[in-house]
């Protein structure tokens, strides 16, 4: 599913971002990635999204070997994963429905399939009633649900959630996490990068803690502060 072996990432200027990181995530797992700012969490997500390549070491995601990936194949890798960001990244001038459908339009799915599937995921995230509204008319939690719907609309086998609750109040955050758990329950692997210690501590899932570019801790049923 997801395998990093001795991954090191160095930037021309600045310290080593990741040092000899090895992580294996099997299909259907729910994993928290935690750690202080500058620990390498952002670099890790960039590597997973293939926005950057590792300096050394190998990364295999959904059977794609990142080191052997040609530029043309990068979009294929990205289609096999859904991504959610802290800042939602929605188009403000498009309706909820259009925002979600866009992920299917760019991978050239037939319009009738798009309509059906979009209706399905919107009902899953509980936004059927708001499908014709613009993101600006929604609360932060609702906007993140739209982003989540967009992330799973193409049925990826992996969802990468980069601080998905970072901009939300605790109560709303729980709503989002609940959805992530629901999606994970259908077999989708979930990788959630987060600072929300209460969530991590109460769910007792696998926790990978990064510190100064290294894996400081990787434990099942872990907590935020080891």
């Amino acid at each position, binding site marked *: 599913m997801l395998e990093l072996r001795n991954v090191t990432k160095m930037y021309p200027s600045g310290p080593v971002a990741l040092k000899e990181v090895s992580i294996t995530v099997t299909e259907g797992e729910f994993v928290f990635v935690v750690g202080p700012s500058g620990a390498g969490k952002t670099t890790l997500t960039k590597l997973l999204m293939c926005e950057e390549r590792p300096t050394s070491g190998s990364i295999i995601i959904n059977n794609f070997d990142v080191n052997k990936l040609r530029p043309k194949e990068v979009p294929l890798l990205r289609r096999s994963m859904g991504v959610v960001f802290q800042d939602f990244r929605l188009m403000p001038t498009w309706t909820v429905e259009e925002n979600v459908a866009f992920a299917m339009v*760019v991978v*050239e799915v037939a319009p009738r399939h798009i309509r059906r599937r979009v209706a399905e995921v919107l009902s899953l995230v509980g936004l059927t009633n708001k499908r014709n509204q613009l993101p600006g008319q929604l609360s932060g939690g609702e906007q993140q649900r739209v982003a989540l719907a967009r992330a799973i609309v193409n049925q990826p086998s992996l969802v990468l959630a980069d601080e998905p609750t970072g901009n939300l109040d605790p109560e709303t955050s729980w709503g989002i996490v609940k959805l992530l758990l629901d999606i994970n329950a259908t077999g989708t692997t979930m990788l959630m990068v987060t600072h929300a210690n209460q969530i991590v501590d109460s769910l007792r899932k696998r926790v990978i803690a990064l510190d100064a570019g290294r894996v400081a801790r990787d434990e099942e049923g872990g907590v935020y502060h080891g």
Partner: protein
Amino acid sequence: MVKLRTWGYFADSAGKSMLRNSWMTLASIGTVAVSLLVLGVFLLVAVNVNTIAAQVESQVELTAYLGKLSVTERQALETEIKALPGVTGITFVSKDQAWERLLGWYGNDRAFLAGWEEENPLRESFEIRTDSSHRVAEVANELTGLSGVEEVLYGREIVDKLLAITRMIRLVGIVLMCGLALAAMFIIANTIRITVFARRREIGIMRFVGATDWFIRWPFVMEGLALGVVGALVSASVLAWGYYLAVRSLVRVMPFWPLVSPWPLLQHLALLLLALGAVIGIGGSTVSLRRYLDV
């Protein structure tokens, strides 16, 4: 393989951004139109001068301008010319006749000739016909050797001059066009850059949901193409309209040298301009995408 409805999506997003940046769209179309218009005008003039040159070349007549000769000397010369091989006819044109022709030539605009009647600067001449156009140069050579003949003018010489003019026109046209085309390309590149900037959010989303590079690029390429082609259409329309007007009015003024028939000349010209417009448009957007769209 890009699907048909995806092309629809590309055209739609290209159209939307053209409407959104309507001023830049107009500026781009305008510069393309102006540069192609300049090229078109130069090409049309060159084609016509070429045609005139060909017409002149096919004429088998020479003109021998005479120095100051007495009537007897002139008659002797006439006999001598008639005897040259290849000469089939000869007509004498007096100074007065030459003057009358000049007046006729300028029609209503003859006012500027006023005051010249007294001295009449024109020369007497013989107009000499030959049996074939191949003979013209040969006869001209012979004529130049005769005493009393000051200067010999014939088709070839005029043709050479006309062809030199054509070359000049074409050269100037192409140089001007290249400069203007570069300017047009620059404006289009800038327009596309603004579009890329205006849509950076959308582009970012496209990237992480797995759109291919070409899927991201196509709308911009299409926008550039549309700007170039619309500009070309504008210039072709203006040229066609202008040329029809020119043909109509020049027929009345100089019926002896009619302009080249608009059809199929304008059709060919329009196709050429459209092709160039497309090249300018695609070129402009490509330059911009290379620099500003890091995909």
